[in-house]
């Protein structure tokens, strides 16, 4: 009941808000929705199965570049291209997952970090195909450019993502994810194929990053190696950590708050990364459940004096 009372007005707000926003803030909202998709899908592996992938931004890059290059070189429409990009990202996810996850979480983190770096180097150096750091110009989704259309496209896809994630987390598979996170050995001794569960979570999450990246690329219409960079990866991670890992709302909250804040901080220069880094360190150290955890605690204290 409580949930419907909160979410109904929120949905109305999200639908009618854009009509009152300037083009600039509409852009900020679209970018925030991109980060909602990224942070929420990263939270599926990190927050729900306890594996840290540093390739989430890289998979977004894969989605953006695959779809973008298909459109530029052989004229495949973006609507189709983003699905190809998503597919490629999920294939890479299965491959990396299969190689690393049986060896343990540390290996996944190391290898995904390496993958990110390598992808960035390849994109930067293969400029015949990717135009390197100059950026590749790719077509958008709509023949007539309108931020409003993009806003609703991003809103709908985000909603679909969140719906899938919500159902997944509350399904049997979601329970298995959490069991693996809580105690891998105990989960295995209860009959859970922990490796399969982890690879599955990693693949779903990577595919979502691929899709989000494809959308993002066709919105920006200029894709650069910044999309698959570790800096981008850091922002996604910081949003999930500061918002609250392992909670459904946390990364959504984190994405909006950090994206909007970074717009304000940017007025004074590029300090937002450093600032978010320091905040994320503090949160990981002192409030590992993030903003959501802090809010919940306050709530409880007030309820039972």
């Amino acid at each position, binding site marked *: 009941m409580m949930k419907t009372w909160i979410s109904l007005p929120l949905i109305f707000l999200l639908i009618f808000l854009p009509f009152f926003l300037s083009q600039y803030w509409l852009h900020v909202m679209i970018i925030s929705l991109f980060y909602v998709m990224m942070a929420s899908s990263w939270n599926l592996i*990190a927050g729900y199965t306890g594996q840290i992938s*540093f390739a989430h931004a890289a998979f977004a890059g894969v989605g953006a570049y695959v779809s973008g290059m298909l459109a530029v070189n052989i004229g495949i429409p973006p609507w189709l291209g983003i699905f190809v990009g998503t597919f490629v990202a999920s294939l890479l996810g299965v491959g990396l997952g299969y190689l690393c996850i049986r060896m343990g*979480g540390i*290996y996944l983190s*190391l290898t995904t970090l*390496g993958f990110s770096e390598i992808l960035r180097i390849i994109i930067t150096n293969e400029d015949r195909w990717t135009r390197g750091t100059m950026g590749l110009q790719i077509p958008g989704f709509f023949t007539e450019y309108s931020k409003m259309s993009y806003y609703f496209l991003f809103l709908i896809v985000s909603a679909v993502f969140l719906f899938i994630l919500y159902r997944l987390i509350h399904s049997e598979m979601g329970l298995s994810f959490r069991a693996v996170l809580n105690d891998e050995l105990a989960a295995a001794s209860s009959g859970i194929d922990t490796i399969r569960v982890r690879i599955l979570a990693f693949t779903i999450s990577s595919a979502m990053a691929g899709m989000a990246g494809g959308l993002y690329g066709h919105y920006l219409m200029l894709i650069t190696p910044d999309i698959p960079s570790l*800096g981008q990866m*850091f922002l996604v991670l*910081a949003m999930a950590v500061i918002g609250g890992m392992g909670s459904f709302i946390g990364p959504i909250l984190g994405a909006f708050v950090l994206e909007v804040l970074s717009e304000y901080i940017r007025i004074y220069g590029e300090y937002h990364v*450093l600032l978010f880094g320091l905040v994320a360190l503090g949160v990981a150290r002192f409030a590992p459940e993030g903003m959501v955890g802090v809010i919940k605690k306050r709530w409880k204290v007030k309820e039972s004096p």
Partner: protein
Amino acid sequence: MAEFLMYFTNGLVIGVINAISAIGVSLIVGIMRVINFAHGELYIFAGYFSYHLSLTFGLSPILAMPLSVFFIFLIGILMERLLIRPTYGDEMYSLIITFVLSIVLQNSALLIFGPYPNKPPALISGSTQIFGLFHYGNQRLLSFGISIGILLFVFYLIKKTWFGKSVRAISQDREMASLMGIDHWRINMISFGLGAALAGSAGVIIAPIFPVTPTGSSAISLTAFVVVVLGGMGSLKGCVVGGLILGILENLGAAYVSTMYRHIFAFIILILVLVFRPWGLFGQKT
């Protein structure tokens, strides 16, 4: 032939520096099951420290180098005490924290030192003829010598001293070690400091040869990680052999295939190891 030998020698020199850097990572993984993603940043910071200590503060490079390493050792100790220790046993948070720290340090380096490459003064100039085949820079030869010295020192520390015995006991069986009365908190802190100091040593040794930049740090971390996986997690011998293999392959590859793809060789090796021998050359299966 002479050209090949020169690239090979370059590989050897880089290889031993790789080994020092990788041992820094391996030591911490072996004892604490923590990967220090800020490894490359510590390496870079050491390079900048030695640059500024000798050029801005006018210290002799002979003093500036060890002093820089000492500063990095202190930073390592602080990192362990303030950030890593509370996450002990929670692998996920330690990964998150060291990764975030790497981003923070990288951005601080950009703010403090600027984006330009910096090269501290060389200790020695000139070059020596090697076997009458090619001339090789004295600074590189000296770096090679210092690196070998550091490797010998680390091996002595691990194989012969009280500290080394505790380290090995903890790496093999943590519970048993604590039953034997080993104070793992102190060992953790010293090991983390030592791991950082080794990153710093590699940084100050390499900086006069290849200038350091704040954005170069992730590639440095990556090289060290690949060496550790190739050699086998927690194996010192593996770090040395892995470091040399990677150093030689990268240099020959850069010379004969493509310079841009230097780091791609490392990644290909990483994938091959994961496919064919995931526990590494000298690691223990399971």
